Every structure is written in C-alpha cells, then in structure tokens.
C-alpha cells in the first residue's frame, strides 16, 4: 500500500476522491487510527487520512454547540468544552484499552462510528447530539447536511445517516455537535452480590423512577469477586443527595447499598465505558450486543447454552459486552441466534483478528429488503464503491 493521502482542505479531499474514482483505486478512511481495527478488512489502494483537517471551527458555549474539523483530536474538543464547564453528553468510548490500539481518537471518527458510552441510555447516542456534517461523497462532491442549530428538519437528515455509517457514505471533514453543561458532581449507588436477573430488575426499577440515573450497569462476579450493580447519578450536590436517598428507599428489597464518591464513581464508569474488563486476554473476540434491557440476562443465558463467555451489562441490561473464545466463528451464530430468539437486537464484533473479521459478519446481517435498501443508499452516495468498500457489509 502506498503512503497515506493527507488532504489539508475539503477541496483537496474532494480531488483525491475524484482521482480515486477515476482510477478505480478505493480508499480506506482513517482518523487517528485508534478504531481502525473495527469492521471488515478492506481491499483498498490507499489510506485517506483526516489528520491534517484539524481544529475547532466553532464554539459558542452560550448556544451549547461546538464544531470541529474531522481530524481534530477528541481530547482537544473535550478540553475546550471542559474549560467552559461543558461536555459531550453521549460519553464517547475510548476503544484503545479494548483494542490495544494506539493513536489519537478523532472527533470525526466519533461521529462516523456513532461512538457512545454509558450515558447513551439517558442522553442519547452520538447521533442524537450530532447536528451538522460536511463530507465528501464518493463522487468527490462536498455535501453539507444539518448545521449549527439544535432544531432543524430542513430536508432529509443525512446527519443521522452519516453517524454509524463508518465512512462508507462519505469522508467527513467537519462535524458539529450540541453539548451540555457538565453537572456539578456525580455519585454511584452500588448493590452487591446480585445475579444477572436480579441486577437487571434492580436497574429497571431505578430507570423507571423519576430520579434520572445517567448510568446503569451490572458487573458480574468474575470481574471483581463480588457482583456489583451500579447506578450513576449526576447533578447539583443537593439534588444528588436527595435522589440517592430516594433511590435507596426504592431499592431496599435488593439489599445493602453503598454510595461511591465522585472520584470512585468517575473512574469506575470510565472502565464501564471502555469495556476495560475485557481488555485481556487479547486473543478473545469481543462483541457488543444491543437488546431490550430486560431481556439481557436471557440473551446471555441463551448464548451460554452454546459457548463459554464472559459478559457484563451496561444500559440497564440492554448493552451486553461479550468476550468469547475466537475459535470457529467466535460465537457469531450462537449470539445472533440468542438475539433473534429474544425478539429484536443486534451484535457487532468489536475485536477480532483480521482473519476472523474477514470470515464472519462483523455487523449484524440485514434482512434481504433492508440489504437492498442499504445497497441502493450506498450507491446513491458512492456509486463506484470508492469509500471504505466492504467495511460494514461484504457486498457494498
């Protein structure tokens, strides 16, 4: 492979795509590289890097909106926000601990991968905060959608479509997010020793309460000897004290409750966000499974019928992180069968060797009519398959 192509303007990026299309030399889009190992391995002629497209383009704290070129390090965005007491509410995961990757995560890749964290269940995913994008499509055209205002229904929402398309529809060069104030403080209520079903039942009570948890996770016994069920609260300290007390009363039947202070809470949720519990052994495959939260434990039980796995739950039970032995299909069939049996949901292989990622469906397979729609959509953005071809689905 030749050295990466590093445009320093949208116009240069467009020229690169136009040339690649003419020469039929597909491009692999890279940001900081920390998430490059997600998705199917691709047959591409060169990397197209966002590295030189860096820097904030807009930050209006009073309007709660921030814009940046796609290659801007996520850390720069988060630091700028922190200075004004704000943050990205969807809590983007850092994939480096899990993937063992290096490089600096970029804001563009956060958008492209719809990368969210534990707060997704209350504050929405990256796609819910993303309000504007500019991208180069596979025809080399510079397209904008959305903008810098919070409410915008003008035309088709290509912003949502860009989020989670992993660069297969366009090379993002600028993104705009809405942001929220960072709460004064946080704390976590911790229940101990619950099995998966009881834990998810407790989380369900908390999430069905008026006390607004911003995190709801269950760490089974294998992680730290005793199972821990975590409920995070954020806000002004008076309000937090009140809500913690109210939740304690509500959850009394689930046993004793500890209150973790701000510091302990923050570091624990960072681990939940980054799935660090599954970082080792590296040889294991890691899946990210989304199902209806109350059905999480039954999905795990069904997977276990066929495979020995290590799991933990986020999103009140609805997000299941599953580490499996990488042999055969690394559990793809068993996991997807368990999801289908439970109703709706999907599984994405987040960590696996290139061989594994080439041999199984990394992203949830689509039903034939949905696959046909995806193919036509892909063609409408990238008719000749120049951008990240085959990264999500083999056929396009």
């Amino acid at each position, binding site marked *: 492979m030749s050295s990466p192509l590093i445009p320093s303007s949208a116009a240069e990026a467009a020229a690169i795509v136009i040339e690649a299309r003419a020469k039929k030399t597909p491009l692999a889009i890279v940001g900081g590289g920390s998430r490059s190992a997600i998705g199917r391995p691709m047959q591409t002629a060169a990397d197209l890097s966002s590295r030189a497209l860096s820097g904030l383009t807009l930050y*209006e704290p*009073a309007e709660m909106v921030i814009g940046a070129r796609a290659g801007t390090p996520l850390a720069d965005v988060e630091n700028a926000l922190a200075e004004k007491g704000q943050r990205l509410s969807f809590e983007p995961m850092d994939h480096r601990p899990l993937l063992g990757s290096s490089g600096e995560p970029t804001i563009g890749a956060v958008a492209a991968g*719809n990368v*969210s964290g534990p707060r*997704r269940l209350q504050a*929405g995913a990256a*796609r819910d905060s993303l309000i504007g994008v500019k991208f180069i*499509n596979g025809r080399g055209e*510079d*397209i*904008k*959608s959305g*903008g*810098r*205002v*919070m*409410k*915008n*229904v*003008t*035309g*088709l*929402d*290509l*912003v*949502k*479509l860009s*989020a989670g398309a992993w660069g297969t529809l366009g090379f993002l060069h600028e993104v705009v997010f809405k942001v929220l*104030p960072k709460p004064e403080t946080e704390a976590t209520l911790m229940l101990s020793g619950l099995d998966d079903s009881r834990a998810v039942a407790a989380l369900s009570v908390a*999430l*069905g309460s*008026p006390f607004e948890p911003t995190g709801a996770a269950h760490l089974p016994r294998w992680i730290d000897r005793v199972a821990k069920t975590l409920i995070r609260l954020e806000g*002004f300290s*008076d*309000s937090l004290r*009140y809500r913690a007390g*109210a939740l304690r009363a509500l959850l009394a039947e689930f046993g004793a409750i500890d209150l973790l202070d701000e510091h302990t809470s923050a570091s624990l949720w960072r681990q939940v966000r980054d799935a660090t519990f599954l970082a080792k052994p590296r040889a294991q495959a890691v899946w990210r499974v*989304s*199902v*209806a*939260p*109350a059905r999480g434990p039954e999905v795990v039980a069904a997977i276990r019928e066929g495979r020995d796995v290590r799991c933990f739950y986020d*999103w009140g039970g*609805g*997000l299941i992180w599953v580490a499996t032995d990488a042999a055969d299909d690394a559990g793809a069939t068993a996991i997807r069968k368990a999801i289908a049996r439970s*109703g*709706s*949901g*999907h599984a994405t292989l987040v960590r696996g060797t290139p061989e594994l990622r080439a041999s199984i469906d990394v*992203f949830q397979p*689509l039903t034939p*009519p*949905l696959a046909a729609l*995806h193919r*036509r959509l892909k*063609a*409408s*953005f990238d008719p000749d398959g120049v951008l990240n071809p085959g990264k*999500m*689905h083999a056929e396009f």
Partner: protein
Amino acid sequence: MTAIAFPAPDAGILARRDAIVAGLAALLPAESLVESSDERRVFETDGLTAYRRQPLAVALPSTTEQAAAVMKYCHDNGVPVVARGAGTSLSGGAIPQEDAVVIGLGKMSRILSIDYANRVARVQAGVTNLAITGAVAADGFFYAPDPSSQLACTIGGNIGMNSGGAHCLKYGVTTNNVLGATVVLNDGTVVEIGGDHLDSEGYDLLGLMHGSEGQLGLITEATVRILRAAEGARPVLFGFDTSEEAGAATAAIIASGIIPVAIEFMDKPAIDICEAYAKAGYPLDVAALLIVEVEGSDEEMDAQLRKIVAIAKQHGVKVVKESQSAMEAALIWKGRKSAFGATGRIADYICMDGTIPTGQLPLVLRRMDEIVKRHGLRVANVFHAGDGNLHPLILYNCNDPVEQAKAEEAGNEILKLCVDVGGCLTGEHGVGIEKRDLMTHQFNKVDLDQQMRARAAFDPGWLLNPAKVFPLEGRVSG
C-alpha cells in the same frame, strides 16, 4: 394569486380514476375507501389551509397488510401516494394532489403494548401523540415530545415531520424518542427498522425516516420510548423591558449549568393576544416574556428556581411570577399554549418555523419587525427560546389575495434571514410545499442532489408525496 405551485395532475391517471377506485375497492373493506367528492373534501388540506387539492381517493387501512396492498397497487399502477395522519401539518406536508391516493392512518390508532420494564410502547402509527401519554400517565410515565397539536396529531405524522415541542429542550424531539418502526416501502414490501433495543442496525434508516415527510415509505407502527415523569414541574414567568434582556437571560440560565425543561419566549404582540384570550395574568407593560419550567422534587425545584430568578434579576427582569399552586402553573402555561388559537381568533396567520443561533436573537427580532412592517403587516412572536426555534405568526386577512401574497413574501424573507444568520428554514414543522422553493437558499445543488439520490433509493419513481420538500425543477431520480 397564491404563490406556491403544484405539479400539473397527470391526465392519464385522472382518466383512469374509476378503474383505480375499483382496484382499491378490491383490496379494502367498503368502509375503508373514501371516494365520494363530499367525503374526500375532508382530506383536501391540512394546517396550511390556504392551499387545497382533492385527492383521487382516500384509503383508510386498518392493518399493515391492507396498507401494503394499497401501496403495492399504487406502485404497480404508477399512482402517487400521500400519507396522512391527522392532517395538522403547518407546511402543507399532508395536502394531497388531484392524481394521488391519500393513505390515512385514522383507523390504525391502537396502542399495541406497553412495556414498563423496557420503558417502551408499541403503537399503531395513527395513534395520537397525547393518547400515548394518556395510556401510561396513570403509572407515572409519559411520551416526551409534546407538540402543541398533541391532542390531534399522530405519531406517524410526528415521525414524518420529526416534530418537537415545548419540552424538547430537555427530552429531545421525535427522532430521539423512537426506537423502531414498521414501514411499508413504495412497492408494498414491509420492513422492520430497529426494535425495542437502542440504536438500529446498519445505516440509521430510522433517523432518515424522521422528517422525511412521507417520501420514503408509509409508517404503520412504531416503538417509542416512554419515560418516568418527574416528581413535579413548576414554571416561572419573567417580564422584561427588552427582548435583548430576555435573550441574554436565556443564555445565562443555560450557561449556569441548569437545563430547564422549557424556556418559552413571547413578544409584546403575542402577550397582548394571549392575555386577551386566556386571562393568564400576563403583565402587559413588558416587551418580552419568558416562561421557564423546571422539574424535580419540591426542594430541587426550589433550588433551581432560586438560581434562575437570581440570574433573571441580574438581567434586569421587571416582573417575576412564581407559581404557588398547580392552578397558577396551569394558568401560566394556558396563555402560551393558546397562542395559536388566540391569534387565529383575531386574524388569519401563517406560522413560520425557522431556527437561529440563539446569539442572533436580538438582531433577528429587529430585522423581522422591519420586514413585516415593510409589507404593511403585523407579527407576533412565540417560540422555544432555549433552542432558537422561532415561530413568528404573520397576521393577515386570507380573503385578501394581495395581503396573502404579502404575508407569504414577508415569511419567505424571514426564513431567508434565519438561514443567513446561520440557522435553517424549519426547526420542526417541515418543508412541505410551504418552504419547498426556498430549499435552494439553504442548500446548493450538490447538497440537494445528494438528498434526492438518497430519496430515490426508496422511491425512484417519485410517487411518494412528490409535490413536497424538493423544488419541482431539477429533480433527480438516482
């Protein structure tokens, strides 16, 4: 002279009307097909009443299968289809055309299941927005997006327009609160998108459906999130001498780290109109009014309101009215919620819906006033201040064609102004026919062509609500 053009109806389709009605009759029970001219009239317009067109026929399916059969029939016979919920669209999104079959969701209004453990409800697309909250309220839950039309409008229409409401500052708009949908595609194929889990698989087709104005498919069922209601909610009312002060107070409240559930703004004309109608006790000697609502326990609300009142005082607030009881709270909201109805009693109006960066508020209010005065008209402003979504109501007399044209011209200028200061044409009401011809002001040709190519992935023949959203010239099919 009404300015907005419709495409000329297809004479071939009009000539085949009897055959098409017979074809539909074979697919639907008799009570589900509306074809007499009298009965069709009910469906000829929506909330944009200045425009109307009688459809060819109206199908009112009661199942997804019936809806799919009608979609397939229309597809196979090249007949345009206009999806319709309650017909409350303010942008003309649901106005039919003479050569189209309207598919109304009126008979699909059931709540299919409520699942508290997973905090979702499965509903048919014709259910009203408020009925969802009604079904779960006794258990302390609610469906968050709350358009003022919520008593009438349907979840299918809400998805079609990606509707918002006063409380979306905290809870988001429709797209943030829907997890799954059953969609009938143009050729009658039925697909499930998403489900009762978070984040749908593959491309975000669910996100794309939101705000697609019936152009990508017909939604027949949806899975929506339901949330546990806060322990209490309490509004406070502030009166200011200038809208600049009100705007600055809004920004300062947000900057302080408090996110109220709603911050609503009214200008002097809107205050006068609403007060005359609702007797809500609004101060009449101020130029701008804010209603700020907070939620939580009594102590939490007290604490938040203390901070908010202190901020308002730093910004020269002249009148502060805190609600001491549920009745007073309801009264404060009554004025705001009756804004459209009250305005409708004194004049005809068109309701604009641009969004602006909130920092541009004082400038835009000033320029808007100039624009409307130049056209010899009046404007009243009520809007969601927290997110910059404006709703100028331009008052005119609909029996005076010259005045109507002026009102539309003034409206167009206002929307262009919104775009020029960094905002957009529509925050929640959709493009419909109303803003269709302004799309080129916000988007250039490649932007629009890309949207149209994505649209064509669903409907290459332009049969789904074809008169809307995209300028009639220069359409792209793939």
